């Protein structure tokens, strides 16, 4: 019998479930309310994602029982977040550093322009 027997049979008290639920409701009100403050787009995305992450933490830890689960399942979950992070960061870095490639390169006008700038040898 290993220690995770107890983890599976841990019955979460009702108080905890309702407490988490109340917190989630409150955070939903907060996130909607903040959106009416008229913040600049970048900041509002960061704040909205921060609030969403806090809500996600509460759902994952108590509703999904990660607080009382084997460490390996927690690692699995965190690992997926890590790889999503890698995916986002590298792709955004690429997008941000190439300008409007899809619009500005290899159009007829662009090539005419480029040809006009090339000195005749």
């Amino acid at each position, binding site marked *: 019998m290993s220690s995770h027997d107890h983890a*599976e049979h841990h*019955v979460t008290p009702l108080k905890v479930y309702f407490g988490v*639920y109340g917190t989630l409701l409150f955070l939903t009100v907060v996130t909607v309310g903040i959106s009416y403050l008229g913040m600049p*787009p970048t900041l509002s*995305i960061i704040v909205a994602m921060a609030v969403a992450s806090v809500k996600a933490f509460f759902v994952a830890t108590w509703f*999904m029982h990660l607080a009382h689960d084997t460490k390996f399942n927690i690692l*699995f979950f965190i690992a997926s977040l890590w790889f*999503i992070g890698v995916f986002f960061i590298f*792709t955004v870095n690429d997008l941000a550093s190439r300008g409007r490639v899809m619009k500005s390169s290899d159009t007829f006008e662009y090539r005419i322009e480029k040809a006009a700038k090339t000195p005749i040898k």
Partner: protein
Amino acid sequence: MSAHEDHPYYHAHHFHSMEQQNASAKLGMWAFLVQELLFFSGLFMAYIAMRFFYPETFELVQHKNLLSIPWGATNTLVLLTSSLTMALGVRAAQMLPMVKNAEEQKLRKQLMNYLLVTCVFAGMFLVIKYIEYSHKIHDGLLPGTFYSYDGWQANIEGRDFGGVVGSGGEMIMTEAPQIFFSVYFMMTGVHGLHVLIGVGVILWLYLRALRGEFNRENYAAVENVGLYWHLVDLIWIFLFPLLYLVQ
């Protein structure tokens, strides 16, 4: 020859204990959830890329209130509540006694009620999504080539720029208004499909509970479907602000 007397029917022979079987089942579900997260991350990446290249279509939707925040917020509260009732259902299943006594009947009824209520809330979510989608279809706010909205006002030199006049009289231009709606319908559509599938699986659990299949040793199915349901809720928690709230 295996001794069937010491293995209840739900204990598969290749596991030496129910604890091991349940732990394996849960890990299997977490592996699936990790896949779901990575799957949705592709859609979120599409959101990021489209927002990066066409920020004005996202701002315009906010500016014109084309997405109803009250409906979206209601859907968020509906899903959060369904997560609570699902968690309470799992809790009831965890406490089911091994013998079919009066307490077992009571807890089984509780489990079945919580599963049913979760489905009701999921149904509410889908109805609200249906209402929102009907408005969009009616207004022609559809993805890609199906886009036919004519609520914009900008008309420069006889060409329709799909733009709108801002509060200061300035022109807020967008060259591809349908892009937001491609992202919107793809993300909420795939999410809604997951909700629908979840309803089906929860109803399956309801039937199994009705037949008295669960007890405090054998409730892994309820718990794992619960995990799936919480993930569906989690995804909406991120979808809602990105699509409805962010300017």
